[in-house]
């Protein structure tokens, strides 16, 4: 399956893209999927991941997800 990978703010700058499409399987984790496109990047503890627009676990399989978003420390308001 294909999943849309989104990067925002500082992570977008570090990874060099805002959006990418990645081939993966439902059993893969967000951490493993991100490593396919950015093998050198290691998210620190302040960086969260969202699967289908819900905060999720970096190490839980994504299932039949359509979107994975890398969410650095938020700073709105």
């Amino acid at each position, binding site marked *: 399956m294909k999943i849309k990978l*989104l990067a*925002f*703010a*500082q992570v977008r*700058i570090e990874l060099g893209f805002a959006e990418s499409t990645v081939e993966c399987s439902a059993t893969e984790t967000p951490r493993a999927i991100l490593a396919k496109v950015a093998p050198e990047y290691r998210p620190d503890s302040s960086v969260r991941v*969202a699967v289908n*627009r819900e*905060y999720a676990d970096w190490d839980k399989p994504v299932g039949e997800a359509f979107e994975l*978003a890398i*969410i*650095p420390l*938020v*700073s*709105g*308001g």
Partner: protein
Amino acid sequence: MKTHIELTHQAILPPPLPTDDREIGAQVDFLGIVRESEAGEPIAGLNYEAHEPMAQSMMQRILADLALLHPCKEVWIIHRLGFVPVGQAALFTRVLSKHRKAALHLTDELIDRIKKDVPIWKLLEGTKE
């Protein structure tokens, strides 16, 4: 509780005051304004970006949570995106309630939750004077 959530690239215009509900006894408006310096350095403004669909759904969920704790009549959230110059508002909230405490508490907790969980970021890139 009625809710209005908006992400906009335009300057924030506070909505007109409600006139049809005579049971509203408290109105708390909050504006988050861009200051002229960040980490001691002068800036011209801040750039805001968001994961817009997720930001919308997170704010809706936060309001659903807070409505259970602090029942109010109506809440507005307007967050500006893109470049926001110094002195202009990046965030507007309005809470209308029967009594002041619910509106004050909801406002305070709402802004804390937005800053903690809603995927909106302020960026300094391209904003130095």
